Each structure stands twice: as structure tokens, then as C-alpha cells.
């Protein structure tokens, strides 16, 4: 397997994967936030493309998605935002399958309606969005409601355009499912650290070391997410054997606080950069002494 850009981001010690929702609270602000997260030491940016029914998210990200949708975020605006980003880390698009599936449908739909008054065409597919995402500079996808058994078309589209398709391994994932996921996973494996939905927690789940142990032999970097919010937690996760940490809700809490208290975007960006730096430092501390850089 050739090294992807995302996989490369894990090459220099523990990687910090940072999530924010695009367009929360505006496209302009989230551009600034992404840049701050990279300044703070993020190695990969997971940029959420907001979907109206985010069933895998907890309240924090759910509210962020609502703010972004209310501010007018759309798949096209999202791709524009990605094109405008001035960062040198890979960007992963995290979204739900319906948005990917529908993309590119609208023009065909109105064309056919105008021309013949026919019914809208019946089937969509992921190819058009994956192609557009690749052109805009996206390096990979996380699609929480697309389990490996429904991922054939998406996997093919990603392969064709050289993008990584990242699967989430849950604590409940069976060995058989794990095997089929690892067959298709490129970039990194997203290890869901606990049951439930996304959301910042005060502790690292006891299940994390066990989850990582199961993936010991997998030839792909392992990043743990769901509930990580502090440098100390990042340290613990890396010490348990992970190659990276994924943080989302803890940043989104800062964004939400900024919205609630009407803080200038610059101030919010500073706080995001600070938290990213703390997480990155914590992650480094998780490495055994001789490996620290």
C-alpha cells in the first residue's frame, strides 16, 4: 500500500487530529479556527460537513452543526472553504452519507425537470462528491453512518481519486467486522474509545487499551477519539499504544463559548491554538522517554 498524505502525518511521533464543524459559526471564522488548530500543532484536520441528522454526535457537535447550517453552510460552500484554507496538513471530510450521495444530483435534476418534466433521476452516488472533494484538496473521508458493508461504491470512488476512507472501529466491533474494515481502511484507523456518541469527557475510557490491543497487528496508524479533551488524557491514550488522538467536542466547546459570549474570532482562535498545543504536548509525553522528540 502506498503511503498516503494522511498516513504520512503520523510519521513524526504521535499525531493530533483536530475536528471542527465547517461554518460554525461562519465560514470565515472556521477558516481562522482551522488555521489556529494547525498553528497549535494539529497534524490532521477533520473538517465536519454539517448534515441535518447527525446521529453519531453528542449534544456539543450537534449544536455546532445546527449553528453552521443556520449560517448557510452547504456542500459547495464547504468545498470553497477547503480551497481557501492556507494550511499544510491533510484535511479529512467528516460527514454523513446522504450529503455525499446527493451531491451533483441537483443540476441533473433541474435539467431533467426543465427539459422533459420527468421524475428526478432515481439514483445518486458518491463519485461526484469524492471527485469534487479531491479537486478541492480533501485527503480522505470519515462517514459515520456508512459501515463497511455498505461502503463499496464509496471505497471505489475514493480509490479512484486517491483519497483515504477511514473507518471507525467501535468497542463493540466483532473480529470479523474488524477484519473487513482493515481490508478497506487507509490513512488511519479511527478507534472509538467508548460506547455512545461524541462528546468531551473527564476521563479516558477503560476500554481504550483493550481496543488498541486488538489492533496491534494492523498495518495502519491508530488514532483514538470520542471523549478526549485534555493534555493529560492525550498522554494516557498515547501511553496505551495509540499513534494519535482525535479531539473534537473540546474545541467545539470553545467555539460555542465564543458564540455565547460574543467573543471576537481572534480570541476564540487563540484559545483553540492553546488547547491544541496542550493536547499535542500531552500526546508527546505519552511516548516512552527515548522516543520523545
Amino acid at each position, binding site marked *: 500500500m502506498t503511503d498516503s498524505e494522511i498516513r504520512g502525518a503520523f510519521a513524526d511521533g504521535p499525531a493530533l487530529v483536530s475536528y471542527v464543524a465547517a461554518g460554525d459559526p461562519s465560514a470565515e471564522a472556521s477558516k481562522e479556527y482551522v488555521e489556529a488548530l494547525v498553528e497549535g500543532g494539529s497534524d490532521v484536520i477533520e473538517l465536519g460537513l454539517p448534515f441535518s441528522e447527525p446521529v453519531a454526535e453528542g449534544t456539543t457537535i450537534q449544536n455546532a452543526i445546527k449553528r453552521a447550517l443556520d449560517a448557510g453552510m*452547504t*456542500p459547495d460552500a464547504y468545498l470553497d472553504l477547503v480551497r481557501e484554507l492556507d494550511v499544510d496538513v491533510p484535511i479529512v471530510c467528516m460527514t454523513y*452519507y446522504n450529503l455525499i450521495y446527493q451531491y451533483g444530483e441537483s443540476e441533473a435534476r*433541474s435539467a431533467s425537470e426543465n427539459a422533459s418534466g420527468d421524475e428526478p433521476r432515481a439514483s445518486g452516488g458518491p463519485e461526484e462528491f469524492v471527485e469534487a472533494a479531491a479537486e478541492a484538496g480533501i485527503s480522505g473521508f470519515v462517514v459515520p*453512518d456508512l459501515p463497511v458493508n455498505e461502503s463499496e461504491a464509496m471505497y471505489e470512488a475514493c480509490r479512484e481519486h486517491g483519497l483515504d476512507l477511514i473507518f*471507525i472501529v467501535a468497542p*463493540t466491533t466483532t473480529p470479523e467486522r474488524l477484519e473487513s*474494515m482493515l481490508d478497506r481502511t487507509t490513512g488511519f484507523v479511527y478507534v472509538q474509545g467508548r*460506547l455512545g456518541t461524541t462528546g468531551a469527557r473527564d476521563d479516558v475510557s477503560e476500554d481504550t487499551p483493550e481496543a488498541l490491543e486488538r489492533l496491534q497487528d494492523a498495518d495502519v496508524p491508530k488514532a483514538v477519539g470520542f471523549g478526549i479533551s485534555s493534555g493529560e488524557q492525550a498522554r494516557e491514550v498515547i501511553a496505551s499504544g495509540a499513534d494519535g488522538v482525535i479531539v473534537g467536542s473540546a474545541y467545539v466547546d470553545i467555539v460555542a463559548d465564543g458564540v455565547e459570549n460574543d467573543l471576537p474570532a481572534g480570541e476564540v482562535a487563540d484559545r483553540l491554538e492553546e488547547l491544541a498545543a496542550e493536547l499535542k504536548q500531552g500526546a508527546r509525553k505519552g511516548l516512552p522517554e527515548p522516543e520523545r522528540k
Partner: protein
Amino acid sequence: MSDQSQRTTGEQETRAGKFGAYGGQYVPEVLMPAVEELADAYERYVLENEDGFVDDFRQRIREFGGRPTPLSHAENLSERYGFDVYLKREDLLHGGAHKLNNALGQVLLAKYMGKERIVAETGAGQHGTATAMACAYLDMPCEIYMGRTDVNRQRPNVFRMRIHDAEVNPVDVGSGTLKEAINETMRDWATNVEDTHYVIGSVVGPHPFPAMVRDFQSVISEEMREQSRERLGELPEAVIACAGGGSNTMGAFSAFVGSAKLPGAPEGTHEPAPDVDLLAVEAGGSSLGVDKDEGYAPNSASLSTGTEGVLHGARTKLLQTEEGQIVESHSVSAGLDYAGVGPELAHLVDEGRVEPVNVDDDAALEAFHRLSREEGIIPALESSHAVAYLEEYAAHRAAGNASGDEPRAGDGPVVVNVSGRGDKDLDTVIEESAARDVAGAPTMEVFEE
């Protein structure tokens, strides 16, 4: 023996959970093992009757549920329309709606699977009530999620759930209706997946839910066929049922399209019957359009106006924007107020086996009063949509040949599935009837000072 080639949904499709282009299992990975475990349990217990599960279900739905429900001749409606109208009386099932068939089936299945806790979502409250009832009966702890808007418009059902010792959690997100309640229940399930079963209330969601819920509800059409043969000596010319998610619709239609059946079904009750018209009546709300700028559909007619997409675990027909954001739906009936529909129903519509039609809020309210006044039956607002369609159906039937439309088959009897009783809707009906000046509606004004 039925001809397999005529079957619209055969056993193979049922086991695979794919109905043409629709169906599937689009859920977060954390839920996949639970969904697979459920699919396995569905095959063993429901399709194969392992440990006598289906016998147990059939006995309990008789003794606890009060099945079979009658097929009643609606004399006054028959006179009004000039053809025989029969009502399948799911309003007489224990709890007052068809919902118990599925809730009892699933809670019993959860018991057989060794699950320790039940969660469910509810729109109008009928499914929540049925689930709470089945949980009390089978001694299972139960938690129900319900949108805040629906909590406010369906208060009697909220109280009924609580009487059965269920916990009711209002959901404040979005428009506070069924869609949000489903999202929230999925989140609970994802957190407690190891010991919890999610009783989905309709033929929606990831496989095996659409097939399994249909099977539990198929007792409706199984009885319809038997009763039609005994009472009428023939099958009905048409079956009319309201469609939100589509559980009573699929229940009323499945034996006529030859869907896979529950073990122990009487011989000949699941043969395909292509001559029976199957009409799915959707909520036309106040208008059939979708306001694309506002992201709002003033209707819940996803079969008539929706487009293909992926929501809540399945590929199906949805009310959505061109970009794929799901829009808020609307119906005067909380139970129909949903942006999606069951994948098998979407498939049957594509195949031309089921005809999607719709009536608006006003027509449904008028039908509510008509059935109450003329037949002494207070129908649920959901069922009122099916009853309302009789008006249009009668007009079509009279004009069919003259208008060049495809003529209805003849002068045979028609069955309307009265999916539930309307006591729960009285507050809404009083308010909406007064606000809209609905024909034939009594008012409470004369009693007010």
C-alpha cells in the same frame, strides 16, 4: 403453493434487507454488531420460529392484544358512496392502535435475546404507549424519547406511558417531532447497545427492522384476507391505509403482495393478489411543495414527492433539499409527521404495486368528524387520512371510465384500515377544527362563558 416469481418481496430480499434499490444498514459502526445480532435473531426466531417464538407471539397477541380485530361493515359510509366499505378495526386492538402488534413482537423478541432494557421513540405517542404497555406486561424497563412538540400535542399518551412506568424523555432539538426523537433514541442505543434493544416503531431503520416490523404487522392483512373470504366470499377490490413511516400500511398490504410471512399463517393468506388495489394515503398537509429556501415541507408525503436518499439506517424516499439536508415535515397528525418512509413501501411504489395518494389536513379533519358522526367510531388523525381518501376514491370510481383514467376494477368492496382510535387527538381536533372552520365539526363554544 404460491408462485415465487409473482412475489414482490420474497424471502431472499427479506433476509438480505434490500428492497430493490432501497433498504440496507446505514448506521454507526458501534450499532452494527447489535443490528447483525438482531438480524440473526430475526431469522431464527421470527422466520424459523425457533423455540416456538412465533407461537408465543401469536398466543399473546390474541390473549393480551385482543386479536383478531373485526372487519366491520360501515353501513352509512357504504350508502354514502354507493359501494361496500369495510373497516379493519385496529382501533379495537389493546391500546387503541395497530402499534401493539409490533411493540409486543419486538419486546418479546428482546426477551428471547436476553436483552435487559428497552428504548423507543414515539411521534403521536401510540408506539410509545404500545411499547410501554408491552414492557409492563413482559416486565422490561423502558425509556421513551418524544419530541417536545409532540409531548405538548399528545399529552394523554405521555401520561399513559408514565402510568405503565416508562420514563418519557422530551427532545428539544429541531422541530421537536419524530425525526428528532429517532436521532435521540439512536444515540441512547449507541451508548447502551450491549444490553438494550431499540424498538423502532415503523417499517423504517436498518435491516432487519423494515422486514421484521412488517412481519409483526402482517397479522392485519392475514386477518383481512380470511375475514374477506368468510364474510364477502371474495377479496376486496381495494385496501386503503394511511402511510407515515408505513407500518400499518405494510401490515395491511403485505399479505396481498405476497410478502414473506410469519410461521403459522393460515394456508393461502399470503398469496399475491394482483387484482387488489393497494392505496397508501399520505399526509398532504397544507401543500405538496417543499420550500427549498426554508428547508421545510408543509406535508409528509415522501412517497408522492420525496427523492431517494439515506436516513436513519436505510436508503429510501425522503423529503430533502437538493443538497441532501432532511427537511422538516408537517401534518396535522403527529403520527404521520415524518420526512421518510419504509424502504419496502418505496420499492412497491416504484414497482407500481402500491399507489401513493394523499389528502390534506382539512380533508383528514373532515373525515375524522364524518366517521365519528356517521359510524360512531372516533378514528386517529392518521387513520382519518385513509378514511378521507374514500371521497376521492368514490369520485374516481364513478368517473373512471368517463375521464379516461384507469378505471377501478368494478363495484367490489373496499377495506379501509382504521389503524387506531382518535381519543389521543381530541385536543388537536378541537383546536384545529375551530381554527379552520372544518365542515361538520361541533364546537365547544356553546359551553363556554
